[in-house]
């Protein structure tokens, strides 16, 4: 199976966009080798701006560039983008409805050894709370590329959450994804798993195990957390009567919360949220951390069984 980190796919797709569109400007904060904007910087130095280690100014300059007609892609690590520069994103970018795509890498605990200070578990919650902000969490390389191309076409502020870790492809290159439309990867009548990011592939694996036990599971890749595909959530709630959400993010404020907001208002069904409990991460290998915080195929399968028992 082919593997690629979503940040790698982002770096390649940026180059592709840069070749096609001259209004694209890329900014980084001294992390271009890690965020993978370095290839764009090498090919289009006149359209790349390094802000240095200054994330507030990174966002402020992005606003000024966007207000001058540029389509801006601003990258740094998720914890510094959504966290440190939150208020600049809110007031300079989102409040002014500017065309800035905040493409944050190294999200979640799979940052690994750098530890909890660098593992954003709350960035989706923060970004989702800003009026008008689009929030996208791709599951693999090919979908990162396509969603980035879609984001270019869609005017306005957006937050793209990318990972450090190499993850298996679940899509082919000819996939058709749309911002704001969840992708149904598997159709089963018993439970629906709604996942995002690297947890989509693990959810697919869990569904195979469960199928062996006679439990038929639907799997949805909810790559757009905001605007959330309400219709799909409601339909899957009605069809299967129970939902499990899975994300590499705090269970507070992320995909799980977003799904619960829809089900509780429109179609109350039991929902379990699998994610990081209310705690910070720590140092460790990505695999050890995923195991430690319960973001595994086995845990997903176990949660589905629990959910079915309690219906």
């Amino acid at each position, binding site marked *: 199976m082919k593997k690629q980190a979503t940040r790698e796919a982002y770096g390649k797709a940026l180059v592709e966009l840069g070749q096609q569109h001259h209004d694209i400007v890329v900014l980084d904060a001294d992390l271009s080798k890690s965020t993978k904007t370095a290839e764009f910087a090498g090919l289009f130095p006149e359209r790349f701006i390094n802000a240095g280690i200054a994330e*507030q100014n990174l966002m*402020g300059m992005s606003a000024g560039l966007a207000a*001058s007609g540029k389509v801006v892609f601003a990258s740094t690590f998720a914890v510094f983008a959504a966290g440190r520069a939150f208020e600049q994103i809110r*007031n300079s970018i989102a409040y002014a409805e500017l065309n800035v795509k905040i493409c944050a890498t190294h999200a979640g605990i799979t940052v690994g050894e750098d530890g909890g200070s660098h593992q954003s578990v709350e960035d989706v919650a923060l970004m989702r709370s800003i009026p008008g902000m689009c929030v996208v969490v791709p599951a693999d390389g090919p979908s990162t590329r396509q969603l980035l191309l879609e984001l270019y076409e869609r005017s306005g502020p957006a937050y793209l959450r990318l990972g450090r870790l190499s993850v298996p492809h679940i899509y082919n290159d000819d996939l058709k994804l749309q911002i704001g439309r969840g992708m149904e990867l598997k159709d089963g009548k018993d439970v629906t798993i709604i996942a995002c990011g690297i947890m989509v592939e693990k959810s697919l694996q869990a569904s195979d195990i469960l199928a062996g036990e006679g439990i038929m599971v639907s799997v949805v890749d909810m790559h757009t957390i905001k605007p959330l595909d309400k219709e799909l959530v409601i339909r899957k709630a009605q069809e299967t009567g129970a939902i499990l959400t899975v994300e590499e993010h705090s269970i507070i404020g992320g995909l799980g919360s977003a799904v619960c907001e829809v089900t509780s208002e429109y179609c109350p069904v039991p929902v379990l949220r699998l994610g990081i409990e209310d705690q910070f991460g720590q140092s460790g290998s990505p695999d050890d951390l995923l195991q430690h915080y319960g973001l595994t195929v086995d845990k997903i399968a176990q949660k589905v069984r629990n959910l079915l028992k309690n219906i």
Partner: protein
Amino acid sequence: MKEINDQAVQQVEEKALAIRRHIVAMLCEAGSGHTGGSLSASDIVACLYFWEMKIDPAHPDWADRDRFVLSKGHAAPVLYAALAERGYFSPEKLMTLRKLGSPLQGHPDKRKLPGVEASTGSLGQGISWAVGMALAGKMDKKDSRIYAMVGDGELEEGMVWEASMAAAHYELDNLLVFVDHNGLQIDGRITDVMSPEPISDKFRAFGWEVMSIDGHDIRAIMKALNNAKNVKGKPVVIVAETTKGKGCSFMENKVEWHGTAPNKEEAGKALAELV
């Protein structure tokens, strides 16, 4: 380089007076807002909108225009007054300041009012916008210039210095920033609350060309604006010595007038002086 003559100076002085009268009237009508820092900035803003900048009120989005970013966004009334006087909208609209549904928000909102270049108010952010705009200008090889104004209290925001470092690093000689140095912030004298002094030395150390002027002397502002155009390879900051509440004797140098609007009686007194 523009010619400076008595007639030009007098014209801008008249506009500065009109702007000050608008500020007092609209703040009185609004019942809240920032009077002192709007009045301290009036002469500089009048110079920019009625002498310096290449703008077209009929085409506020003209791509080759100069831009002004009011980073000290709480002084929105001075910007609104200048835009109205310049013909971006009817001066009657000034009386809707801070009211529900008005495009004249408490702090400038670029989505709502043509002529407003940046949504500011959260201090420290406007100067970053201006740096971004100057970068865009360089990228597109435009000869338009970017102007910004920061407050002296605003210099306490760390982001101002991030932006200043970037402006010098990228040699943005199309960027000119005024510091409205009126010496007061909400809690008192800037030197008592959290001193940003020595302001000129700081900018010089950050790689800027620094000029110091009397921010109420129209001729001095014009000269500085002219001189700034000769500076190549680095951004220019003009540290303008100003008086908070300038033009209304009972407001001048009074910290109480930072975030207070005049009542009807006070406005009448102020307007009687502003003639």
